[in-house]
């Protein structure tokens, strides 16, 4: 696999405050990479550093095997789609799409060909002579993507491109972007705080927190095998239940008064551990040893799914997702079980225990 992009010990400081702490990342050619993380985690800053809009304090950025760390944004082989679209309001759609080429002194006839080609891909031909102010949010977003396509970049950069759209449009644009990636086959780097976008679009998810990469992996890896409690809690909605527990020697932990088997772990020791259980893996069952006893606090019916918000005997809270079954009233006592393979265990530092 050739390199689409490579970050090596990339750091960024604003004055004395370092916000990106030595990020290493390899992105394969044609890969769709999504940066996710809570606000303030540095995902947008990292993207802007790749774009060249933010100076790199330390480290190197390579795109297509070429060191671009000190290059001008226009010379990096990137194109960027902004959250606010950033269309030039005084130019027609056609001029917006062709602006980059006209700055590069490409002949007019050539620009027209390129602009028409991009407009065709995005089905915005009828809009070419309008101004951005006359377009809807979704149309503006298409134009913004079109402007990126015209640049024929090696890497597309998306900075929360769907955040300003309404929910319905967001879904259709998401599918559109996925289609675009399949058709164009370029490397794409996409920043979002929306998990659905991350899970559906990404070949590779990069979870960031406080300027540090917490985990890199396919959506499945990140969801099913979170590297630590942060990733476990961040990816998935509702979030994974993380229960304080104590190791009970060989293959057993004590959580909320229940002795739980953890056969995958040879010896959990006797220290503190955290048990991770996804809401959809919790199954209602009859009272038995090794099950979790809980009291229903709140029951939510959402049609296809229902959520049980429960409290455990020691006060910890637990969310369970059910596909069917009767409504449950607050105050009822229930018991949960799960498949042993679905249980995750983390050490006191929050790291995954294998």
């Amino acid at each position, binding site marked *: 696999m050739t390199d689409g992009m490579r970050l090596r010990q990339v750091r960024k400081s604003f004055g004395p405050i370092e916000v990106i702490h030595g990020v290493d990342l390899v992105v394969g050619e044609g890969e769709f990479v999504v940066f996710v993380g809570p606000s303030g985690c540095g995902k947008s800053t990292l993207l802007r550093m790749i*774009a*060249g*809009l933010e100076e790199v304090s330390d480290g190197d950025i390579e795109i297509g095997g070429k060191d671009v760390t000190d290059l*001008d*944004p*226009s*010379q990096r082989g*990137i*194109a*960027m789609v*902004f959250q*606010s679209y*950033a*269309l*030039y*309001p*005084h130019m027609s759609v056609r001029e917006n799409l062709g*602006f*980059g080429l006209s*700055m*590069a002194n490409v002949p007019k006839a050539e620009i027209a060909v390129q602009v028409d080609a991009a407009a065709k891909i995005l089905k915005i031909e009828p809009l070419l002579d309008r*101004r951005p*102010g*006359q377009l809807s949010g979704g149309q503006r977003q298409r134009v913004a993507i079109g*402007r990126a396509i015209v*640049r024929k970049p090696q890497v597309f950069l998306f900075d929360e491109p769907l955040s300003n759209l309404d929910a319905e449009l967001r879904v259709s644009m998401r599918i559109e972007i996925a289609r675009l990636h399949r058709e164009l086959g370029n490397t794409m780097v996409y920043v979002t705080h929306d998990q659905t976008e991350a899970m559906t679009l990404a070949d590779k998810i990069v979870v960031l927190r406080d300027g540090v990469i917490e985990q890199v992996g396919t959506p499945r890896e990140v969801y099913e095998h979170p590297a630590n409690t942060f990733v476990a809690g961040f990816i998935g909605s509702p979030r994974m239940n993380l229960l304080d527990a104590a190791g009970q020697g060989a293959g057993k932990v004590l959580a909320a008064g229940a002795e739980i088997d953890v056969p995958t772990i040879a010896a959990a020791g006797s220290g503190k551990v955290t048990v991770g259980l996804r809401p959809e893996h919790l199954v209602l069952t009859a009272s038995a040893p090794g099950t979790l006893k809980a009291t229903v606090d709140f029951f939510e019916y959402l049609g296809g799914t229902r959520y049980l918000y429960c409290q455990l005997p020691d006060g910890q809270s637990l969310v369970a997702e059910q596909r069917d079954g009767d409504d449950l009233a607050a105050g009822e006592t229930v018991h949960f079980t799960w498949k042993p393979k679905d249980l995750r265990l983390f050490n006191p530092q929050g790291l995954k225990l294998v």
Partner: protein
Amino acid sequence: MTSPALTLAVPASSRRRRARMGQWQGLLYIAPAMALVIVFFVIPVLFTFWMSFHDWPLLGQPEWIGLGNYVRLLTDTRFLSSLRFTAYYTVITTIAIFVVAFPLAIFVEKQRRGVGFYRTVFFMPVVVGLATASLLWVWLANVDSGLIGPAIRMMGFAGKKVNLLATFDSAFWTIIVMVVWKVAGFTMIILLTGLQSIPVELNEAARIDGAGSWQRFRHLTLPLMRRTIALALILSVTGSVLAFDQFYIMTSGGPQNRMISVVYYIFNQSFVSFHLGYGSALSIALLGILIVLSVVQLRLLRVGDDK
């Protein structure tokens, strides 16, 4: 707010009465402003317009002469030369103000250390009155006790005494420098608001599109600041066309009476020679010229057809 049910219960006539009451209330609110505009602008303009059709001496009966004053001003060489001088002054000052104010605006737009200090310093001369500033510069340009002339001499650029206000050129440029010093801060603030209204992402997108700083200025900043530039331009042109204080105070019409601006000429005709009717006709002509200039500027900058 009345509920819909209540509104329905009220008879139509009373509802109409209330609507009429609301209209009177609205009028009441704008009455003070209207009164000021009418008393100090509309009536004087109408009265000036009325006067312009008369031979109106300071003492004695005004005499209706129809368009006589207007016919006269078309062939009045002194008026035409004052018009020429004013046009020359307006072009030079406006260019000079923009040449200074635009870089200043760009300089103080960026968040940098002490930007508030710079903005304040550049704006400070604006709060000085024009007459005061003129007096100050008369002193600065004084041949013996001033600052500029003696300083030029001390630094060895001139052998003999330098009297800046003695020749047309040096007096003219002294006035230009004074006006730029006095007005550029104001234009800077107007341009600054225009610069700040351009979203940062637009410039970033243009950087990615490969536009250099000059191209970004030419293709983004300037077009997006059209309205702001139009405002600054009209204010600057109007202010220059109406220039009077600096010529009256600094040069008294200047070497060989070559610095008589239009307003200065109107002043001379009205309050020195007491041709009040002719002065009025000149004022109305000037008003017409200003309106035409403003409309032309708005047209040229195509303000209003953004969509």
